[in-house]
């Protein structure tokens, strides 16, 4: 053991975030006291971030199977789903919340880098990225300037990494709420494509096979980042992390990706794993554990950037863009040839053994010797205590009686369109290259993005002429205000909304990846939010036949000001069979009929869809009231009906009603098509909702209520009867509410009539975030 290692004291154990019981368990596994390096290794592997020790029992309740699933949740770095014709996709979402709080640009950039690595590690070529972001308010309030800096930094960090790597970032979501002040959320998603036979495994197979390290040298950056992510964000923990910020190098990542894909095509690789959270530690013990083998490495062979690094530091560093590759013995020259071609550093650092142990040496001396499986798979599991949060009583007691009926709904619509939560996110996505790779069929700005997969979307080595084009739709959604107000219902809605977005694009769900962003699980009320959310997610994913293929848990999202709103972001991926079925949200032609599919209002909802609504939040600064309910049966028949219509060629546009309700959805259908820079295509509509005034009871609820399971479609005039009649037969309410055309949006509801010039609506909606950012 190195002389300089500190003595293992209870204090040191505590600093490593390990409980006395966990420490005893470690001693049991080793049958002795751990060394300092071993303590560090256990502390990161048994952190929440790596071991899911607080969430594993919950994750087990997710539906994870379908005939399409080729690699299921938890097996590898990312799940893999069959999309037909021998092709498959790999996708996953991952959080980088705490690093982004400390250094927004680099934190977000390295988050993107990490998830891209997870995908090409599976042997897939990364072909698109999406992201889900949350910040404190950017317009007003004491923290607004800071929040803008975080927001701006995160967006340019994502842009920097994704653009340079050359991946289109084609969808995402952004919300602003005081609960994310000082603890922003940055969830990054990546999707890759491969042929079934190209699936690579993160397993250290084959005794005697050499273990290669490729990528840049190891430095002290991101030291113990996994542990950092597994505790509350405090000034102290942030301060420690500031000393070890990870800097991303997308240029390096691009080369590593190309070299790895080229190498995987040679069949010289027995196993491959990225060095993500917990770096060398995680990649060595996990690959050995998966293969049921052992692994032995010599740290002096690991390329090092900083002089005098200790074994502890080398094992826990989270330097970016590094990979661990288990090479078939005798095939080493191929690795060298390919990595030299790409001018990438590589080193042979060890070999696979049959001992089942992870043995780490430093200049020949053993510094760690741990049973790999016990370390990787036998972290303690906790059933945390849960208790319904007290605040929910007030939420349930809240009634609309205390909110005056809107006196100027026309002005309300304008304010809602300019509210940063609803306003166009073009300020964000115009900074992302979303057209590279020649496959972006529906770019950001519609309900779901659509990419086309073609022959060159595949990794090298799959040249077999079967260049079938495929169309993949993607979306990520979560209305966290709903989840805060009713975790179960809110989580269901997150999935339902994502599935609805896919249906609007013409897609059938293939699978789900979720990111559970929550507060400290030791707080029973926060754990209750988590538990209830998982119940809702699981039920809804089962319902829409969108099994969970993997995901990420980020707990401890709380600053000294309190926890974030519970935010289970849900990314859904779907398949569109034919190019003609690809559908967008904006109105197309003058004279088309506008039809509302779904109930105009949920009459059983005492809040009339206004509980937790954008209208209450944005215009009344109230985040309360019971959120709308989601009847999954109803939701599913809506999706099936809509998809059926799309497949019959009846639908010209489809847009789901979410934040801001009917009025916002209608306005967006009029103004959201962007032809080119400074050139929107504005197309008006005349709407009459008079038939529903009585049911709604309040005009503001009719216009801005967020009743679930509703989609606005436009169809050719001749198809109206067909669509309305058939919808009714299928049990979906359908009513013609207006006509496309004219230079303005007009909306009649009984005696009231609203009228808005399109250019003004567009300006408010399109430019409001840019204006806030210029403050």
């Amino acid at each position: 053991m190195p002389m300089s290692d500190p003595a293992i004291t209870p204090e040191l154990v505590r600093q490593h975030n390990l409980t006395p019981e966990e420490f005893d368990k470690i001693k049991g596994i080793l049958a002795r006291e751990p060394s300092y390096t071993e303590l560090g290794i256990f502390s990161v592997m048994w952190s929440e971030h790596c071991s899911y020790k607080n969430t594993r029992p919950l994750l087990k309740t997710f539906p994870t199977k379908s005939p399409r699933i080729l690699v299921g949740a938890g097996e590898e770095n990312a799940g893999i789903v069959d999309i037909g014709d021998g092709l498959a996709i790999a996708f996953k979402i991952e959080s980088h919340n705490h690093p982004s709080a400390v250094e927004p640009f680099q934190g977000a950039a390295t988050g993107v880098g990490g998830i891209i690595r997870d995908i090409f590690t599976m042997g897939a070529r990364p072909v698109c990225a999406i992201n889900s972001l949350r910040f404190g308010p950017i317009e007003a309030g004491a923290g607004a300037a800071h929040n803008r800096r975080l927001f701006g930094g995160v967006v340019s960090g994502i842009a920097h990494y994704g653009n340079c790597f050359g991946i289109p970032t084609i969808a995402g979501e952004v919300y602003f709420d005081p609960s994310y002040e000082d603890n922003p959320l940055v969830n990054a998603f990546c999707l890759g494509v491969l042929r079934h036979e190209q699936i690579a495994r993160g397993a250290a197979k084959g005794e005697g096979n050499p273990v290669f390290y490729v990528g840049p040298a190891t430095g002290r950056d991101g030291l113990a980042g996994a542990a950092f992510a597994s505790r509350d964000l405090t000034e102290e923990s942030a301060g420690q992390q500031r000393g070890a910020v990870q800097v991303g190098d997308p240029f390096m990542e691009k080369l590593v990706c190309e070299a790895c894909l080229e190498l995987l095509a040679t069949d010289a690789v027995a196993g491959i794993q990225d060095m993500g959270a917990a770096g060398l530690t995680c990649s060595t013990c996990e690959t050995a554990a998966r293969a049921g083998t052992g692994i032995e490495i010599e740290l002096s062979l690991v390329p090092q950037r900083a002089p005098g690094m200790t074994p502890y530091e080398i094992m826990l560093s989270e330097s970016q863009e590094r990979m661990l590759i288990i090479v078939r013995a005798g095939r080493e020259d191929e690795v060298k040839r390919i990595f030299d071609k790409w001018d990438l550093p590589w080193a042979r650092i060890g070999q696979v053994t049959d001992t089942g142990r992870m043995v780490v040496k430093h200049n020949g001396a053993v510094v760690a010797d741990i049973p790999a499986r016990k370390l990787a798979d036998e972290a303690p599991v906790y059933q945390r205590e849960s208790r319904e949060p007290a605040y929910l009583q007030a939420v349930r007691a809240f009634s609309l009686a205390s909110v005056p009926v809107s006196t100027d709904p026309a002005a309300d619509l304008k304010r809602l369109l300019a509210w940063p939560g609803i306003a166009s996110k073009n300020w964000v996505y115009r900074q992302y290259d979303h057209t590279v790779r020649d496959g972006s069929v529906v770019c950001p700005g519609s309900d779901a993005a659509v990419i086309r997969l073609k022959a060159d979307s595949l990794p090298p080595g799959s040249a077999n002429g079967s260049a079938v084009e495929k169309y993949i739709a993607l979306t990520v959604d979560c209305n966290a205000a709903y989840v805060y107000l009713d975790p179960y219902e809110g989580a269901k809605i997150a999935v339902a909304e994502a599935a609805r977005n896919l249906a609007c694009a013409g897609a059938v769900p293939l699978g789900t990846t979720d990111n559970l962003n929550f507060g400290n699980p030791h707080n029973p009320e926060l754990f209750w939010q988590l538990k209830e959310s998982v119940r809702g997610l699981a039920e809804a994913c089962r319902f829409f036949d969108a099994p969970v293929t993997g995901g990420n848990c980020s707990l401890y999202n709380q600053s000294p000001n309190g926890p974030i709103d519970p935010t289970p972001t849900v990314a859904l991926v779907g398949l569109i069979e034919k190019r003609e079925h690809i559908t967008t949200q904006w109105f197309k032609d003058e004279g088309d009929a506008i039809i509302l599919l779904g109930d105009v209002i949920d009459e059983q909802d005492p809040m009339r869809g206004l509980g937790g609504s954008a209208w209450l939040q944005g215009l009344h600064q109230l985040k309360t009231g019971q959120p709308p309910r989601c009847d999954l049966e109803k939701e599913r028949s809506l999706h099936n009906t809509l998809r059926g219509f799309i497949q019959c060629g009846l639908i010209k546009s489809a847009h789901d009603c979410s934040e801001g309700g009917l009025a916002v959805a209608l306005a967006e259908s009029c103004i959201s098509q962007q032809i080119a820079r400074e050139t929107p295509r504005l197309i008006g509509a005349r709407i009459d909702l008079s038939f529903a005034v009585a049911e709604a009871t309040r005009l503001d609820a009719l216009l801005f209520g967020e009743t679930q399971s509703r989609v606005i479609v436009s169809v050719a005039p001749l198809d109206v009867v067909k669509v309305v009649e058939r919808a009714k037969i299928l049990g979906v309410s359908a009513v013609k509410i207006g006509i496309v055309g004219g230079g303005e949006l007009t909306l009649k509801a009984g005696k009231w009539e609203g009228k808005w010039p399109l250019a003004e609506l567009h300006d408010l909606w399109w430019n409001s975030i840019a204006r806030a950012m210029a403050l």
Partner: protein
Amino acid sequence: MKAKIIVTPKKAVLDPQGKTVQNALEQMGYKGIGAVHVGKYLEIDLPGADAEVWRSQIDGACHKILSNPVIEDYRFVIE
């Protein structure tokens, strides 16, 4: 009078740009050079002739906006 400010990546922090430039120089035949670091240089025109009036203000600006103290160091002269 001008403030001349140099902002450099911190020693412990990865400097991918510096590394890439170093490789490029070596490949172009500049053999034997050592590490390269790439930072920023800022020049701010200042009125008056008394450097002392500005020193603490420039220091504050460097700390608050001209550099990112998490990953960068800075130094400056006023002359």
